[in-house]
């Protein structure tokens, strides 16, 4: 059994240093002979046993004698430990490649490959979301049906097999934080996904949130939604009515029409419908994303979205061209 251990240990060491390759080769020959029911005549097992027990004997005669007597048992235990360790190391590497964390998706535990925790998923309570006061517990999230594309802003392929729905609030700092990621996703997966934005204004926390949502709808009417959305996120502390009209003016929108839209609260019911839909889906914080039936809560890194989107699209980690 010591030859199997020697094969694993010196085989790994031999990757980094040529001086171990000879003994790794000898260990391989020994193991190969044993598995083909022949005697291992290299003497490697005797040499290793003698080296280990001889040195232990110098240190402690009792210990040396015990190890010598139960050498095969100790070898088996050590081999099992090595195999278990290798399994977990391999698993960690695979998880890291797939999820950016060696403990699996959505894990907050320490990962040696990501010591600073940059890939850790954020907690709802960790400050990466805006929440409805008094509703900080995580409800079970379930993606809303796509339905008719009428009550939200959308971009992309309406026939796409991957639909990303974002419930956001124009006054929420974290919805703004997620914005570059959203833009990157739309660019990267152009033609492969459908992105839908739905209003979830946290009016109790952000007093201008509802107004800002209405203004965005009014800008959509005049075909300038995305440009107006940029203004809203860039000026989250300046979303009073006069300021919202000012942004429309900057974009060259018809101000009378815009004011009319705002003053008549033309889209209030639509926004309320979106909000209710969000509540029904279990949402209490923004931004919350649904990628098909998978949820991502908070302003997460692009990597996290990518893993889920790629999986939904059936793209393997090595297919960098897709």
């Amino acid at each position: 059994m010591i030859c199997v251990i020697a094969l694993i240990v010196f085989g790994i060491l031999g990757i980094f240093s040529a001086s171990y390759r000879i003994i790794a080769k000898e260990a391989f020959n020994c193991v190969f002979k044993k598995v083909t029911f022949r005697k291992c005549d290299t003497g490697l097992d005797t040499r290793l046993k003698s080296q280990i027990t001889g040195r232990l004997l110098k240190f402690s005669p009792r210990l040396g004698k015990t190890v010598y007597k139960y050498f095969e048992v100790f070898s088996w235990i050590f081999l099992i430990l090595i195999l278990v360790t290798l399994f977990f190391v391999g698993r960690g590497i695979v998880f890291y490649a797939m999820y950016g964390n060696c403990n699996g998706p959505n894990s907050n535990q320490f990962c040696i490959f990501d010591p600073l925790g940059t890939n850790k998923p954020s907690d709802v309570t960790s400050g990466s979301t805006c929440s409805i006061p008094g509703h900080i517990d995580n409800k079970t999230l379930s993606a809303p049906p796509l339905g008719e594309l009428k009550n939200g802003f959308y971009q992309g392929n309406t026939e796409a097999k991957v639909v990303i729905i974002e419930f956001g609030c124009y006054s929420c700092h974290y919805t703004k934080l997620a914005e570059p990621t959203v833009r990157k996703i739309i660019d990267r997966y152009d033609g492969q996904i459908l992105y839908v934005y739905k209003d979830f204004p946290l009016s109790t926390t952000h007093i201008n949130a509802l107004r800002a949502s209405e203004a965005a709808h009014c800008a959509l009417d005049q075909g300038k939604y995305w440009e107006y959305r940029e203004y809203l996120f860039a000026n989250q502390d300046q979303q009073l009515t006069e300021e919202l009209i000012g942004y429309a003016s900057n974009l060259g929108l018809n101000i009378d029409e815009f004011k009319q839209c705002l003053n008549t609260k033309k889209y209030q019911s639509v926004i309320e419908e979106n909000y209710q839909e969000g509540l029904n889906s279990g949402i209490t914080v923004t931004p919350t994303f649904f990628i098909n039936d998978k949820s991502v809560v908070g302003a997460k890194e692009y990597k996290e979205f990518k893993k889920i989107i790629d999986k939904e699209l059936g793209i393997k980690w090595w297919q960098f061209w897709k």
Partner: protein
Amino acid sequence: MNISKIREDFPILNDPKKPIIYFDNACMTLKPKQVVEKMEQYYYEYPACGGRSNHRLAKKVTDECNNTRTSLRKFINAKSDKEIIFTRNTTEGINLLAKSFQFRKDDVIISTDKEHNSNLLPWQMIAREKGLRRERISTKNGFDMTSFEQILKKAKANANRTFVSIVHTSNMDGTTLPIKEIINTAHAYGAVVMLDGAQSVPHNPIDVKKFDIDFLAFSGHKMLGPSGTGILYGKEELLKKLSTYNVGGDTVNDTTYDSAEFADIPERFEAGLQDYGGIIGLGAAVEYLKRYIDDIHEHELKLNKILTEGLKHQVDILGPEDSKLRSGIFSFNAKNKMEHHEVALMLDNYANIMVRSGRHCVHSWFNDNKIDGSVRASTYLYNTEEEAKQFVEKLKEVLKMR
């Protein structure tokens, strides 16, 4: 013999950080600094070739090699320097003889049942090549003189020539054959005798004239000399009758495209450039050894007694139990069946004791006696009684593991 003073000449024995007990002298002896310095001097100051060029460096090499030849001649009390041939080792000396001796079909070769492979294989091969007969003498209860004489008698009656090639002192168990009686008997029947002196010459004074030895092969590296050096001694009249088998530069006085005028002995057997550094170092080794050669055997018997008395209840000794009959060699297997390689490795790793394990190149004997191998401790002039006692103590501890 002042052992402490001798040990000062061996740096490897004086390293306090890596103290070792070297008990593998039957394989290779350590080298005193005098030998190493002499070789260094050659390589630094006159690294030329000898016996060819006329410049002063070459002349110095030639002179030093001649000095070595003379030292060796005196060491074994040969008649002439011409009787000393430089080889690489005992093995090469025996092979040279086997290939060069003018054997005829049905000649008989006699050896013992305890020969080193170097004194077994050349005779196996030449016997097959030339249709020779081989006979083996048992040494189970001492050399079987009766069988020996019978074989000689029978060969003589059939007008077959006989060649006796035997080990003088066995590297396996340290026993020494009664060569005086053997040679006298052999000569009485007109047989030629070759002795494998690898284990005897370095440990005991030998007089080739006194014992009337026809051929004697031994190794420089087993007598404090450099590795890659050996000697074949042969009586002048017998050497002149040998054919040449390894020919080339320096074996000839002159050549044409179709013929060669071979040089006199011993040069005709020393083809090509020699290991001059080795030969010069060997000369230094002989000069060093001759100061102590008369005392070594006695010293080794003392050490062997310590080993034997201390361990006879823990081990099965190969050869006679009486340590006086085993020179400086203590070959054994553990009574508790601990495997011989394991014992040797444990002694190394636990106690820094160097011994040999295995079949010691006498596979034929081990196969015949159905023994896997043995551990062999072999002493020399620089080993101490303290080392022998430590060996006993450490071996007992190792054997307790099982």
